[in-house]
């Protein structure tokens, strides 16, 4: 039931691709350090609509090897950049139904500024750079891979 990265594997626990639904609790627990006063988390769920179209479900594809390397680079950079204490991000791949968890980010820090800023930065960077692709099936029978243009204001997930 868990695609969670195990603790104590160095950078490996910072980011993981999960081929199956995963539990949040074992990802959050290792981030609760005694010197941490703040924790910020983000969850991306499969919405029932995107850009005005009704969505039935979706599938994520990933270049797993590169995605995990990029994801770990991003989370490590966020810890350094914002002075956060610990962080973890897990992204699902495979078939997802409406309401399923697609991505989770958690960040602990001494204070809330660092926790919020690092959490926001990680999800933005993951969405912008990690080689994962979303395939949406629409209620009108259409289906497509989303390959957004960088400055596209209708890009998914904004």
């Amino acid at each position, binding site marked *: 039931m868990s695609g969670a990265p195990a603790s104590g594997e160095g950078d490996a626990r910072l980011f993981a691709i999960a081929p199956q639904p995963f539990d949040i609790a074992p990802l959050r627990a290792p981030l609760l350090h005694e010197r941490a006063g703040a924790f910020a988390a983000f969850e*991306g769920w499969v919405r029932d609509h995107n850009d005005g179209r009704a969505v039935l479900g979706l599938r*994520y*594809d*990933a*270049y797993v*090897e*590169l*995605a995990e*390397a990029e994801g770990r680079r991003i989370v490590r950079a966020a810890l350094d950049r914002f002075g956060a204490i610990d962080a973890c991000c897990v*992204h699902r791949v495979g078939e997802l139904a409406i309401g399923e968890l*697609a*991505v989770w980010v958690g960040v602990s820090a001494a204070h809330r500024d660092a926790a919020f800023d690092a959490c926001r930065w990680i*999800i933005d960077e*993951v*969405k*912008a*750079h*990690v*080689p*994962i*692709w*979303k*395939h949406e099936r629409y209620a009108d029978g259409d289906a497509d*891979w*989303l*390959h*957004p*243009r*960088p400055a596209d204001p209708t*890009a*998914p*997930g904004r």
Partner: protein
Amino acid sequence: MARVTLLYFASLRDAAGTGSETLDTDAADCAGLYEQVRVRHGFALPRERMRVAVDGAFAGWDAAPRDGAEIAFIPPVSGG
């Protein structure tokens, strides 16, 4: 000639009908190699919107395809 393994994801995988293929190429760089397979498989995405990775790490389009390399063409990403 270099024998390389190409990885395809998302719309490229659909268009190519496979997630990977091995081929011999005389392309001088990854840019030329992408043009070759783009024409052959009818990929809709121009190279300007793509990135390339060699052996599991992002690389420049001017990288030469080495014999035995694993080369992935990365369409615009949409995780999250």
